């Protein structure tokens, strides 16, 4: 009996060590730095916002980020996550445009579309154009597409097709 107990203890020690090793390996393979976490879940609610609708929707998105999205692994394909994109779109262009832009973004956020975008070497996520680029009434002169990102994206698309 004692032998069995000691055997279990020995095995548990051994396995915990192995688990620790595995954990270290996982940590090294997937470095999740503090900055990255902050970048993905930064506060989006602008408390100086005077529009109740914008404030309510930003609050809902923040609620989703803290209590829903945090329970799962980061599954969004883009560096500016879809929730952040939506919050920013609502804050800048109002609820109607914001929801339409968010709907478009959700339809672009899937595994196969990832190959059409340049990747962030640090995080491995796809880099999308800034929110302004997807506004229907954008002026090309005031907010043109970022040149570097544009050429990188076009070259990637050409390569993939």
């Amino acid at each position: 009996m004692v032998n069995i107990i000691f055997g279990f203890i020995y095995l548990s020690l051994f396995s915990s060590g192995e688990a620790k090793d595995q954990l270290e390996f996982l940590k090294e393979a997937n470095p999740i730095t503090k900055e990255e976490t902050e970048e993905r879940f930064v506060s989006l609610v602008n408390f100086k916002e005077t529009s109740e609708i914008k404030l309510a929707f930003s609050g809902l998105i923040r609620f989703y980020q803290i209590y829903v999205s945090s329970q799962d692994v980061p599954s969004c394909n883009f560096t500016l996550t879809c929730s952040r994109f939506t919050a920013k779109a609502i804050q800048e262009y109002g609820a109607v445009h914001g929801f339409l832009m968010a709907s478009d973004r959700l339809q672009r956020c899937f595994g196969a579309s990832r190959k059409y975008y340049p990747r962030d070497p640090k995080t491995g996520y796809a880099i999308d154009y800034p929110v302004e680029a997807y506004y229907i009434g954008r002026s090309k002169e005031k907010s043109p597409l970022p040149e570097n990102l544009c050429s990188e994206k076009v070259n990637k698309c050409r390569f993939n097709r």
Partner: protein
Amino acid sequence: MKYLKTLFVFTLFLTASLKGENSEEIEYFKPENIRRFADYLFEEKQYARAAGEYQRFLFAADSFPGNTDSIFFKIALCYRFNENYIYSINYFKKIANEYKHSFLLEEAYMGIGLCFSLIDSFEESNKVLKAYFLNEPNVDTRAKQLITLNHIQKKEWDQAREFLNDADPNSRQISLLIGKGENLPKKNRFASGMFSAVIPGSGKYYCDRPMDGFHSFVTTGITTWQAYEGFKEDGLHSVKGWIFGVLGGLFYLGNIYGSVVAADIYNEEQETMFKISVKKYLDENFK
């Protein structure tokens, strides 16, 4: 021991005498040496520091040396290579305004034209180049090329062709650029939106984003189908029907919105890529 002492004294004497021979100090702040150092920095491509040293040379010299125009020219080049185009233009202008008989005058005007072109002031660039070079009996081919490229960037194709010199060996490359710029592929935002309104996702397919189009079609299709199923089963009181109906509607509208934006982005991407190819040509042939 005595021998060692003699050797020691002799060594001391020898080192002292050698030091005495080489004790001539270098005057680092002498204008000639500042100039030499600036030239060295220029050769080493440390343009920001070189510009500073050339300015220090002008400050250190008692009176402006005879070749001040060439120093101004070097400073202007330093700023241009360092991508400080406004400063560069100012120095080129100094040569153009103050040294009318300088052998660098033509190059200075070319420099002004090129810098204006690099900061996207094509109108200004052409104004300077045309005012100086078109009055000359033999127009510089490079100036003509630059004027052509400015017209290309302003999408003035006919004027660009006017300045294209057939004798110029690069004319074929430039005419290819004109052809490419004239026939840039374009997508109509209205057509894109209409396509997506009829068949969800087809607008994105039209804008060269087939996978996005397919995903839009699937998401809109599935949510709408689920809404239909819900309403079919429980009528207008169906919760499932309303939830999927709202979702489907949002996806459908978002898909139309996204298709219109995709057409705009496609057109702008083509224009940006064309601009990059013209800038690449400028980089390769003028810098």
